[in-house]
């Protein structure tokens, strides 16, 4: 039994530290992030993209992508998709508007009820996928249409229009709404403004105040969700189950991993993320529209894939997905700053998606030693 000196196989080449460091899911996203920043610093460096307002601008857009990408990332690693994210965003926003404005209930009740409703729909998605064994692609595609349909139907039925406003008034003085629509660090920015680090308004009613009056809660939510999801995924038992469920559900079941439960919980988490996005959005805009969140499911999936996750599940990184979202935000807003036609953003999305998938396939081959 004391065979402790088994020899190292001489045919295995020593792998270099560099190569080891490169073989990680986030590689593509890190390279992409550096490239994108370098590009815009060169071509849009003097356009105001990198002053306080500019940074806040693309950070906010990136944070929106990040919130839904985190959910999509965890779910994809668990081996499933959710195509109903975009419709869920529209549905959740409309639900908050109808409950708070049309029914006149306090907005905190509207927010909590909406969260409960969305998470329940997420669970339903998951239960149907797990019970029927159908691909989540099909099940959530059905919910993409079902939820969008309701999102257009209900406001028309009740209010005879597809946009419901008046949410800002409803949110006035509410205790829960600032958690989604508020800003933090106002004092810090006033201090920076006084120091002259960032610009201050020179005229108008806000003369003397800094141009950036705080960090939107949206960004705090994004960073918080990324941090928590990353720790859960890489450092906890549950995280290991998420990888296992997506890597090989049958093998995981054999060793007692509750695969079905894990998958359903990931569907619920994705719905939660969509709901956070929707709540921040309706409180910021003060209205809910039936077309909100269109195509968001695909943007989330693309951010996740750029972040190094495999479409087949079992492999990926939340940090990578967050960087994927950052690339999105920076490019979408950067094209505007650089004065480039914004429709080219779609072209960019398609191209970078292709590159990301090719790179991921290559990395996976190295990891699994396939030849």
């Amino acid at each position, binding site marked *: *039994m004391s*065979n*402790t000196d*088994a*020899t*190292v196989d001489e045919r*295995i080449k020593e792998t270099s530290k560099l190569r080891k460091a490169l073989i990680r899911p986030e590689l593509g996203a890190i390279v992409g992030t550096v490239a994108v920043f370098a590009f815009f610093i060169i071509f849009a460096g003097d356009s105001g993209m990198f002053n306080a307002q500019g940074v806040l601008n693309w950070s906010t857009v990136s944070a929106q992508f990040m919130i839904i990408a985190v959910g999509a990332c965890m779910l994809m690693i668990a081996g499933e998709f959710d195509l109903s994210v975009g419709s869920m965003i529209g549905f959740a926003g409309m639900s908050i508007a109808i409950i708070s404005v049309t029914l006149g209930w306090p907005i905190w009740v509207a927010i909590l009820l909406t969260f409960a409703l969305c998470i329940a729909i997420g669970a339903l998605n998951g239960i149907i996928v797990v019970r029927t064994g159908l691909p989540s692609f099909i099940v959530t595609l059905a919910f993409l249409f079902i939820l969008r349909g309701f999102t257009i139907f209900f406001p028309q039925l009740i209010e005879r229009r597809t946009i419901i406003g008046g949410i800002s008034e409803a949110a006035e003085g509410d205790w829960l709404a600032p958690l989604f629509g508020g800003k933090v660090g106002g004092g810090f920015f006033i201090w920076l403004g006084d120091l002259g680090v960032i610009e201050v308004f020179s005229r108008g009613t806000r003369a003397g105040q800094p141009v950036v009056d705080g960090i939107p809660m949206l960004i705090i939510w994004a960073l918080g969700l990324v941090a928590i999801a990353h720790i859960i995924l890489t*450092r*906890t*038992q549950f*995280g*290991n*189950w998420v*990888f*296992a469920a997506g*890597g*090989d559900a*049958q*093998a*995981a079941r*054999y*060793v*007692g*991993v509750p695969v079905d439960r894990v998958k359903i919980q990931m569907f619920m988490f994705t719905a939660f993320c969509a709901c956070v996005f929707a709540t921040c959005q309706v409180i910021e805009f003060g209205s809910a529209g039936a077309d909100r969140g269109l195509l968001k499911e695909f943007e989330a999936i693309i951010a996740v894939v750029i972040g190094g996750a*495999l479409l087949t599940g*079992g*492999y990926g990184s939340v940090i990578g997905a967050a960087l994927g979202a950052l690339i999105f935000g920076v490019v979408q807003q950067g094209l505007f700053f650089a004065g480039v036609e914004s429709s080219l953003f779609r072209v960019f999305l398609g191209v970078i998606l292709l590159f990301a998938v090719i790179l991921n396939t290559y990395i*996976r081959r190295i*990891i*699994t*030693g*396939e030849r």
Partner: protein
Amino acid sequence: MTTEPIIEMRNIEKHFGPVIALNGVSFDIRPGECHCLLGDNGAGKSTFIKTMAGVHKPTGGEILFGGQAMHFDSPRDAMEAGIATVYQDLAMIPLMSVTRNFWMGREPVRKVGPFKFLDFKTANDVTMSEMRKMGINLRSPQQAVGTLSGGERQTVAIARAVHFGAKVLILDEPTSALGVRQTANVLSTIDRVRKTGIGIVFITHNVRHAMAVGDRFTVLNRGKTLGTAARGEITPEALQDLMAGGQEMAALEGSLGGTV
């Protein structure tokens, strides 16, 4: 061998609708022995071990575990009683590290305040030392299982079962997809594990692999046990004949010019 069997299966029958998959199979396994279950494709080997592992409930017959009648309602029950099964291809997740695979479902946790985190240090150390005991020196416990050879993967699965206290280890055709060298490695792992007092059920249709490590041999054919023989009581040729049904094989081998 005078020791009591860990598990005794008596006259196990299993019907799937009109199909009689098992028609009275008896089998027992004692501590520290390697009991080979041989049979050609379709003989009922898989159905039989799945019954033992709690996947199927027998239609008839008794299962005695440590002398007591036992009913396993799920693979989980069987696992908890100490019956571990290593399936040929479904045991490991290639994209995950050896450590993550080894501990999958039973991860060690460390408490930090109200939160529980994976204890990677313990997990990695135990994985490395268990693998060393099996004669495999890993480059790193973080290397993906996909980089291991087929034999090494079997060994990880076996080491995992042993570490988590298996009393009976069922190996479902562990050598059928392996090369010569890797087969030898797995067979020597079986020998190591047997010496720790664990009973091993070794399913194979390769007589030579069975003869290399087996203490007893049971042959299944068409859902029935044709008999059990101890080591030295039977020749490889006789085993081969039992498995394939004699006459026909002899004729085939004659035309091929050698033993298959």
